[in-house]
């Protein structure tokens, strides 16, 4: 799980793209701008960029052009667009705490998945994921 609350450049952007549940803010900017200071793309960004439609990845890596939150969603860098990261954190915690164990399949309950590593006795805002 990863959240880009502000600007996320180079290897940070690479990490964001590679994670399973990426989220991004409206006003954050994502760029692969290693070429502006004489370095080369890293952290798996060439893998991601070479698989974008057309030559969009080439454009992103060669110019280091910053991408807004909405574009990042369209380019598959993140799954959800959020307003405030803190609210999102509480939201996720609340959602998982409210997850109904009875609606899960038996096989999942059998391996103790309903806890998700969360202490249910603690209040929602202090529980850590």
């Amino acid at each position, binding site marked *: 799980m990863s959240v880009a609350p502000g600007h996320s450049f180079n290897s940070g952007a690479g990490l964001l793209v*590679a*994670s*399973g*549940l990426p*989220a991004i803010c409206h006003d954050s900017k994502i760029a692969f*701008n*290693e*070429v*502006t*200071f*004489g*370095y*080369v*793309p*890293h*952290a*798996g*960004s*060439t*893998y991601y*960029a*070479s*698989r974008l*439609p057309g*030559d*969009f*990845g*080439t*454009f992103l*890596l*060669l*110019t*280091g*052009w910053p*991408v*807004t939150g*909405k*574009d990042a*969603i*369209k*380019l*598959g860098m*993140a*799954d*959800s*667009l*959020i307003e405030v990261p803190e609210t*999102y954190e509480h*939201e*996720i915690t609340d*959602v*998982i705490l409210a*997850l109904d164990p009875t609606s899960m*399949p*038996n*096989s*999942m309950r059998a*391996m103790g*998945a309903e806890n*998700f590593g969360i202490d249910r006795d603690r209040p929602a805002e202090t529980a850590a994921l």
Partner: protein
Amino acid sequence: MGINIHDEPFVDPNQRKPDVVAYADLAYKKMLKDWNIARYGQGGEGFFDHGASSFNQFDYIQKYVKLHAGHIYSDNTVQTLLQHREMIDRCFWSNSIEEIMDALKRETHPFAKEILQKMVCNSMVSMKLALKMLRKAKNIGYGEVLKMELNVALNKVEDSDFELGVREVLMKPTKISRLGMRPNPGFKTEVSDLELESYFRENKFAAKIDLDIVENSLLPTRHFFERFSDSMRVYINETSSPQEEIRDAVKIEVEELLRAEGIDIRDKTVTIPMAREYIDKKLKREN
């Protein structure tokens, strides 16, 4: 989240773009799957699978969180970069930086001039290396890409261009211009092909870093399921790609490939290495 087929305007079926047809095909397959799940329960694969099969824990949480937390705003008034896609494709298809810049000079749109302005400020060696890496990365797996990037990055750290860039660009913050729009600090402008190729040599420090790469893997797989590492359905399904369509496509493709070999994906005796081997063999036979 990729291309939404519902956003596309209606086109005569004979003139549709192939990728739109592919997405529609995928959407249809997904619809059938959803029907199966609605009929036979969550986690069900079909007629004989009543939710009793091994279950992808991470996928379940991912879907649940996506459904209830975070939002995607459909605001079509915002101008996006994607509107320039045709122009970008027209200019950036080439395998050399000079040709790309020439193509940009020929464009009349003001956005092309902005791009050119930005590219002039960038390091030429870095751009050439990045282009070379991009073209190489297209045909290799995630593991090899990481290895290549590690070697090139470690070799690049040692050269003078990087030192200059850090000293002149990174360490001198200016309030006037953005990071990319400051003038070129005097990067090298000419570099030979041999010199470029030498950046791809193996670095002595690269061997010391353990990348822990799964062989024949298609996309990054992370170790969420160490408890169930032997169950194929959990491991080969490429949950880690942020693009849902790709995930679905890979899953459906893998299922169909294995079915053609006479293997049922729900068979728990089939391990991941076995499945990978089958798929690898199959792909080699096709080539």
